[in-house]
Protein backbone atom coordinates (compact mmCIF):
# COMPACT_ATOMS: atom_id res chain seq x y z
CA UNK A 1 0.00 0.00 0.00
CA UNK A 2 1.09 3.56 -0.61
CA UNK A 3 2.19 5.63 2.36
CA UNK A 4 2.46 4.96 6.08
CA UNK A 5 0.09 2.64 7.94
CA UNK A 6 -2.04 4.59 10.41
CA UNK A 7 -2.93 3.32 13.89
CA UNK A 8 -6.60 3.72 12.89
CA UNK A 9 -6.12 1.35 9.97
CA UNK A 10 -4.77 -1.19 12.47
CA UNK A 11 -7.66 -0.78 14.91
CA UNK A 12 -10.17 -1.17 12.08
CA UNK A 13 -8.45 -4.38 11.01
CA UNK A 14 -8.67 -5.67 14.59
CA UNK A 15 -12.33 -4.65 14.95
CA UNK A 16 -13.27 -6.59 11.80
CA UNK A 17 -12.24 -9.81 13.52
CA UNK A 18 -14.65 -9.55 16.44
CA UNK A 19 -17.29 -11.53 14.52
CA UNK A 20 -14.86 -14.39 13.99
CA UNK A 21 -15.58 -16.13 17.26
CA UNK A 22 -13.36 -19.15 16.62
CA UNK A 23 -10.31 -16.87 16.97
CA UNK A 24 -8.63 -16.82 20.37
CA UNK A 25 -5.31 -15.16 19.56
CA UNK A 26 -4.06 -12.36 17.33
CA UNK A 27 -0.36 -11.82 16.85
CA UNK A 28 0.60 -8.49 15.32
CA UNK A 29 3.99 -7.27 14.20
CA UNK A 30 4.57 -3.60 13.35
CA UNK A 31 7.69 -2.20 11.74
CA UNK A 32 8.38 1.44 12.63
CA UNK A 33 10.97 3.69 10.96
CA UNK A 34 13.92 4.36 13.25
CA UNK A 35 15.95 7.58 13.39
CA UNK A 36 19.20 5.66 13.05
CA UNK A 37 22.49 7.50 13.23
CA UNK A 38 24.50 7.04 10.04
CA UNK A 39 27.90 8.36 9.05
CA UNK A 40 26.34 11.25 7.15
CA UNK A 41 23.62 12.09 9.67
CA UNK A 42 20.32 10.85 11.03
CA UNK A 43 17.76 8.89 8.99
CA UNK A 44 14.73 11.09 8.24
CA UNK A 45 12.63 8.60 6.32
CA UNK A 46 12.83 5.47 4.21
CA UNK A 47 11.59 5.37 0.65
CA UNK A 48 10.32 1.91 -0.24
CA UNK A 49 10.06 0.53 -3.74
CA UNK A 50 9.05 -2.97 -4.81
CA UNK A 51 8.90 -5.32 -7.74
CA UNK A 52 5.19 -5.49 -7.08
CA UNK A 53 4.05 -8.36 -9.29
CA UNK A 54 6.85 -10.58 -8.02
CA UNK A 55 6.24 -9.51 -4.39
CA UNK A 56 2.58 -10.46 -4.69
CA UNK A 57 3.42 -13.80 -6.22
CA UNK A 58 6.02 -14.53 -3.54
CA UNK A 59 3.64 -13.50 -0.78
CA UNK A 60 0.93 -15.82 -2.14
CA UNK A 61 3.41 -18.71 -1.93
CA UNK A 62 4.50 -17.81 1.60
CA UNK A 63 0.87 -17.51 2.67
CA UNK A 64 0.05 -20.94 1.30
CA UNK A 65 3.07 -22.52 3.00
CA UNK A 66 2.13 -21.03 6.38
CA UNK A 67 -1.52 -22.08 6.15
CA UNK A 68 -0.23 -25.60 5.49
CA UNK A 69 2.23 -25.54 8.40
CA UNK A 70 0.06 -23.89 11.07
CA UNK A 71 -3.58 -23.96 12.04
CA UNK A 72 -4.51 -20.36 11.21
CA UNK A 73 -7.76 -18.45 10.90
CA UNK A 74 -6.50 -15.31 9.14
CA UNK A 75 -3.35 -13.73 7.77
CA UNK A 76 -2.95 -10.14 6.56
CA UNK A 77 0.21 -8.29 5.50
CA UNK A 78 0.51 -4.61 4.59
CA UNK A 79 3.84 -3.14 3.53
CA UNK A 80 4.11 0.58 2.78
CA UNK A 81 5.57 1.84 -0.46
CA UNK A 82 6.78 5.40 -0.97
CA UNK A 83 8.36 7.69 1.56
CA UNK A 84 7.73 6.78 5.21
CA UNK A 85 8.94 9.12 7.92
CA UNK A 86 10.66 8.33 11.18
CA UNK A 87 8.17 7.10 13.81
CA UNK A 88 5.68 6.00 11.15
CA UNK A 89 4.65 2.39 10.59
CA UNK A 90 5.69 0.73 7.34
CA UNK A 91 4.84 -2.92 8.01
CA UNK A 92 1.71 -4.44 9.55
CA UNK A 93 1.59 -8.22 9.89
CA UNK A 94 -1.56 -9.69 11.44
CA UNK A 95 -1.98 -13.42 12.07
CA UNK A 96 -4.92 -14.99 13.94
CA UNK A 97 -5.60 -18.48 15.19
CA UNK A 98 -7.67 -20.47 17.67
CA UNK A 99 -4.76 -21.19 20.02
CA UNK A 100 -1.94 -18.74 20.53
CA UNK A 101 1.00 -20.92 19.52
CA UNK A 102 0.00 -21.09 15.86
CA UNK A 103 -0.43 -17.33 15.45
CA UNK A 104 2.72 -16.53 17.44
CA UNK A 105 4.99 -18.91 15.57
CA UNK A 106 3.51 -18.21 12.13
CA UNK A 107 3.85 -14.45 12.70
CA UNK A 108 7.52 -14.82 13.60
CA UNK A 109 8.26 -16.93 10.52
CA UNK A 110 6.20 -14.63 8.30
CA UNK A 111 8.08 -11.48 9.35
CA UNK A 112 11.35 -13.28 8.67
CA UNK A 113 10.17 -14.30 5.20
CA UNK A 114 8.88 -10.82 4.39
CA UNK A 115 12.32 -9.40 5.16
CA UNK A 116 14.25 -12.11 3.30
CA UNK A 117 12.07 -13.16 0.39
CA UNK A 118 10.00 -10.21 -0.81
CA UNK A 119 11.54 -7.99 -3.53
CA UNK A 120 11.22 -4.72 -1.64
CA UNK A 121 13.96 -2.13 -1.16
CA UNK A 122 14.36 0.69 1.31
CA UNK A 123 16.34 3.84 0.59
CA UNK A 124 17.25 5.62 3.79
CA UNK A 125 16.97 9.37 3.41
CA UNK A 126 19.58 11.11 5.53
CA UNK A 127 19.51 14.82 6.12
CA UNK A 128 18.46 16.95 3.15
CA UNK A 129 20.65 15.51 0.43
CA UNK A 130 22.10 12.17 1.38
CA UNK A 131 20.75 8.67 1.24
CA UNK A 132 21.95 5.10 1.56
CA UNK A 133 20.37 1.81 0.57
CA UNK A 134 19.03 -0.06 3.56
CA UNK A 135 20.66 -3.40 4.38
CA UNK A 136 18.63 -6.08 6.19
CA UNK A 137 20.52 -7.92 8.87
Amino acid at each position, binding site marked *: MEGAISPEFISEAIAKHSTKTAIGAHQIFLGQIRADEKEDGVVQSIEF*TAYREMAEKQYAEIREELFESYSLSCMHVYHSLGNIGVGEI*NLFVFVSSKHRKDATEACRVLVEKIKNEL*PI*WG*KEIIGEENYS*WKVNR
Partner: protein
Amino acid sequence: MTIKVKLFGILADNAQANKIEISDVSTTEELLQKVNRKYPSFESVNYKISVNQDIISNDQKISTDDEIALLPPFSGG
Protein backbone atom coordinates in the same frame (compact mmCIF):
# COMPACT_ATOMS: atom_id res chain seq x y z
CA MET B 1 17.94 -10.44 -29.74
CA THR B 2 17.29 -7.43 -27.52
CA ILE B 3 16.18 -8.13 -23.96
CA LYS B 4 14.43 -5.64 -21.72
CA VAL B 5 15.69 -5.75 -18.15
CA LYS B 6 13.98 -4.21 -15.13
CA LEU B 7 16.23 -2.65 -12.51
CA PHE B 8 15.46 -2.07 -8.84
CA GLY B 9 16.94 -0.40 -5.78
CA ILE B 10 20.57 0.58 -5.97
CA LEU B 11 20.88 -0.83 -9.51
CA ALA B 12 18.17 1.47 -10.86
CA ASP B 13 19.87 4.23 -8.95
CA ASN B 14 23.32 3.52 -10.42
CA ALA B 15 21.99 3.15 -13.97
CA GLN B 16 19.63 6.10 -13.51
CA ALA B 17 16.92 3.98 -15.16
CA ASN B 18 14.23 1.49 -14.14
CA LYS B 19 14.63 -0.42 -17.35
CA ILE B 20 17.55 -1.08 -19.70
CA GLU B 21 17.89 -2.95 -22.98
CA ILE B 22 20.64 -5.44 -23.68
CA SER B 23 21.12 -6.69 -27.22
CA ASP B 24 22.60 -9.84 -28.73
CA VAL B 25 22.15 -12.14 -25.76
CA SER B 26 20.24 -15.43 -25.58
CA THR B 27 21.04 -16.78 -22.11
CA THR B 28 21.08 -15.33 -18.59
CA GLU B 29 24.86 -15.77 -18.36
CA GLU B 30 25.44 -13.79 -21.55
CA LEU B 31 23.07 -11.13 -20.28
CA LEU B 32 24.85 -10.81 -16.94
CA GLN B 33 28.26 -10.52 -18.62
CA LYS B 34 27.05 -7.72 -20.87
CA VAL B 35 25.32 -5.93 -18.02
CA ASN B 36 28.42 -6.01 -15.84
CA ARG B 37 30.56 -4.69 -18.70
CA LYS B 38 28.11 -1.88 -19.41
CA TYR B 39 27.58 -1.00 -15.73
CA PRO B 40 30.82 -1.77 -13.85
CA SER B 41 29.29 -0.41 -10.62
CA PHE B 42 26.81 -3.33 -10.60
CA GLU B 43 29.54 -5.82 -9.85
CA SER B 44 29.90 -4.67 -6.27
CA VAL B 45 26.18 -5.28 -5.69
CA ASN B 46 25.36 -8.86 -4.77
CA TYR B 47 22.32 -8.89 -7.05
CA LYS B 48 20.22 -11.75 -8.41
CA ILE B 49 18.45 -12.25 -11.69
CA SER B 50 14.82 -13.24 -12.04
CA VAL B 51 13.11 -14.67 -15.11
CA ASN B 52 9.34 -14.38 -15.09
CA GLN B 53 9.46 -13.47 -11.40
CA ASP B 54 11.45 -16.50 -10.34
CA ILE B 55 15.02 -16.10 -9.14
CA ILE B 56 17.41 -18.05 -11.35
CA SER B 57 20.78 -19.41 -10.25
CA ASN B 58 21.73 -21.58 -13.23
CA ASP B 59 22.26 -20.36 -16.76
CA GLN B 60 19.13 -20.57 -18.88
CA LYS B 61 17.88 -19.50 -22.29
CA ILE B 62 15.87 -16.32 -22.48
CA SER B 63 13.73 -14.70 -25.13
CA THR B 64 12.23 -11.27 -25.67
CA ASP B 65 8.96 -12.56 -24.17
CA ASP B 66 10.53 -13.26 -20.80
CA GLU B 67 10.24 -10.76 -17.98
CA ILE B 68 13.80 -10.25 -16.74
CA ALA B 69 14.78 -8.28 -13.65
CA LEU B 70 17.93 -7.61 -11.64
CA LEU B 71 17.36 -7.61 -7.89
CA PRO B 72 19.73 -6.18 -5.27
CA PRO B 73 19.56 -7.77 -1.78
CA PHE B 74 16.05 -7.24 -0.41
CA SER B 75 15.61 -4.71 2.36
CA GLY B 76 11.89 -4.52 3.01
CA GLY B 77 10.23 -4.74 6.41
